[in-house]
């Protein structure tokens, strides 16, 4: 085992080499002595040297009694938290006193506090930038990306909380060391651990942010850990993540409570500051509890009224948000020590204020949703009233006319639906208000067609039903019938010839394979349609075909049904010049197989 390999993790030896100017040989002898006395333990398998804090102290004491050491004036510049912690231990000189150690610890606290504030500031700026970018995303098309960005924000929130806790705890350790000199080494180790862990978290956040930006640029979904329920609120996710964090808390560190009477602590908050915080906390608690009670009452009342299920769902989401705030309040208050410095109190107040504001915004949003839904329900009632009256008017026409109209209506309704007269009209009709927008992409078309077809002959289920070759009087059906495959009414004569020629070829080679055959056809068609625009597709495959006077009734019906099926695609734009959407290609593909 090479001695140099152990230096990094064995502070005693580093101390001996760097500070005491010991020769390699002397160090090795001392190391062997330490090892044989059990102070230093060696893991032979991993070639690592481990030593406990207590052992380290013993070793240093033992060495200091036997050696006269001169402290070097200029310490090398060291940046990382780990090095800062090591530096303190390295500088425990025989002549140095507790005061100097505490000064060094105070430096750690000071530097860490300064660093952490600057890091938080950087992260917040980046977070703000990411929010700006996220706002530019289309909430429907980029729902997944937005949900993932939300997770990045949640992760950041967790880091901010962890940073603030670490700051408070490191500060507390500094104070604790003053009051308990015997725990100095332990305090240093804990502080070092917290500093390292916090810096690690910050680095991870920076990486996550960086990846998020890169993904946004590439228009890909964001790289965030495991999938989570998209319905979960941000606030709830904060709590879940927080609860799962491995970050050390005050409780984990098992601090002994400081006795306020033991020594005067000059950094304690003043009585006024404490009272102010208490007032803030009490007020927040009261407001949260009052709102929770109100929401519970609303849920009961809405349940009793048989309100739309979504109203109750929204109210429950609001209740959860308040519950999370309540939980966070409890967590924060438990982590506060009465002797915490005023900065810690202010930070806790800020965390809770921010969360309360976020919760307030969230609940306001829910309130708006409920109000909007309530308005819609009221409007719907009025529409029903109008329709009842309208039906009444219709029926109040003279008996003779009414009977005749009813009779005609019953006969022509299915036929009108089957023609290009009514359905495209229902699907794409410009409203009076704008002259631009229409029914495309709205539930109107879907609902209309679906509901009317309940009592109508053609059904959507028949869309992909096999067309009976016997009913289609075209030359291409001869081959279709011969080989027993489905007839595709949308196939152009050119494609039909290709299909027939492939089939004949396969038959001739006695290698006929329906699956291969079909996939070749599908591929040929797919290649053909994938580059055309939606509007071209509609023109080519539907409009002309629907008005094809040579087509049979059944074939026309089949095409019409396909048109209806297409109209069910959400936000489908018949005039789009963009390439066909995958959903339509898949549908068409399915049809051709």
């Amino acid at each position, binding site marked *: 085992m090479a001695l140099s390999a152990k230096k990094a993790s064995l502070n005693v030896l580093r101390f001996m080499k760097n500070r005491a100017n010991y020769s390699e040989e002397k160090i090795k002898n001392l190391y062997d002595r330490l090892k044989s006395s059990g102070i230093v333990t060696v893991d032979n398998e991993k070639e690592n040297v481990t030593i406990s804090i207590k052992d380290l102290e013993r070793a240093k004491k033992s060495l200091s009694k036997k050696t006269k050491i001169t402290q070097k004036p200029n310490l090398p510049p060291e940046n990382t938290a780990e090095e800062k912690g090591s530096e303190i231990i390295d500088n425990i000189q025989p002549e140095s006193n507790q005061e100097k150690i505490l000064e060094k610890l105070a430096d750690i606290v000071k530097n860490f506090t300064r660093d952490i504030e600057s890091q938080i500031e950087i992260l917040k700026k980046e977070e703000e930038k990411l929010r700006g970018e996220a706002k530019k995303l289309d909430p429907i098309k980029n729902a997944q990306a937005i949900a993932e960005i939300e997770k990045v924000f949640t992760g950041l929130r967790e880091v901010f909380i962890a940073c603030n806790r670490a700051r408070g705890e490191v500060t507390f350790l500094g104070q604790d060391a003053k009051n308990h000199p015997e725990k100095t080494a332990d305090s240093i180790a804990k502080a070092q651990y917290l500093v390292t862990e916090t810096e690690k978290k910050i680095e991870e956040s920076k990486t996550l942010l960086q990846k998020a930006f890169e993904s946004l640029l590439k228009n890909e979904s964001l790289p965030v850990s495991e999938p989570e329920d998209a319905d979960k609120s941000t606030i709830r996710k904060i709590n879940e993540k927080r609860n799962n964090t491995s970050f050390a808390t005050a409780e984990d560190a098992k601090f002994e409570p400081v006795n306020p009477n033991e020594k005067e602590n000059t950094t304690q908050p003043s009585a006024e500051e404490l009272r102010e915080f208490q007032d803030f906390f009490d007020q927040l608690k009261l407001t949260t509890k009052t709102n929770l009670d109100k929401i519970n009452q609303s849920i009961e009342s809405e349940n009793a009224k048989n309100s739309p299920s979504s109203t109750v769902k929204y109210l429950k989401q609001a209740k959860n948000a308040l519950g999370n705030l309540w939980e966070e309040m409890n967590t924060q208050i438990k982590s506060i020590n009465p002797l915490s410095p005023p900065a810690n109190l202010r930070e806790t107040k800020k965390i809770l204020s921010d969360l309360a504001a976020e919760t307030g915004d969230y609940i306001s949003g829910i309130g708006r949703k409920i109000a909007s839904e309530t308005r819609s329900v009221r409007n719907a009632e009025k529409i029903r009233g109008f329709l009842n009256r309208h039906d009444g008017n219709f029926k109040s026409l003279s008996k003779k006319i009414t009977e005749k109209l009813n009779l005609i209506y019953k006969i022509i309704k299915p036929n009108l639906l089957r023609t290009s007269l009514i359905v495209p009209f229902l699907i794409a009709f410009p409203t009076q208000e704008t002259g631009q927008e229409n029914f495309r992409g709205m539930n*109107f078309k879907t609902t209309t067609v679906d*509901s009317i077809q309940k009592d109508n002959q053609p059904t959507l289920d028949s869309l992909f039903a096999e067309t009976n070759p016997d009913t289609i009087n075209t030359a291409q059906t001869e081959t279709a019938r011969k080989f027993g495959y489905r007839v595709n009414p949308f196939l152009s004569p050119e494609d039909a010839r290709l299909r027939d020629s492939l089939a004949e070829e396969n038959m001739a080679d006695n290698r006929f394979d329906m699956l291969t055959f079909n996939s070749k056809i599908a591929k040929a068609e797919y290649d053909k349609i994938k580059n055309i625009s939606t509007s071209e597709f509609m023109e080519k495959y539907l409009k002309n075909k629907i008005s094809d006077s040579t087509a049979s009734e059944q074939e026309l019906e089949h095409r019409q049904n396909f048109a209806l099926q297409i109209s069910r695609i959400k936000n489908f734009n018949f005039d789009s010049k963009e390439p066909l959407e995958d959903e339509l290609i898949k549908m068409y593909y399915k049809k051709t197989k």
Partner: protein
Amino acid sequence: MNILNDLGIENLPEDEKKNLLASLSESFLRRITVRIYENLDETDQTEFEKIAAENNPAKLEEFLKSKIPNIEEIQKKELEELVREIKDFQAENK
């Protein structure tokens, strides 16, 4: 803007929205039927009934277009009228 927003029912629960729109389209079809009938003279009305009974959509379409060239305009106006009437009714019953 679209019809759902025009009538203020865009935030209705999905099922209710579907049911209501089905009723709306049913009402719309009735109105169209009446308008078509009104636009045909007595002879054409008889012819219309006859063709309708044949259950031949292409023929029916051809017949209607030949007899009522502005049928699409009529449909458009009818729907606009329906929406307007509903909005008036909503306003009256606030």
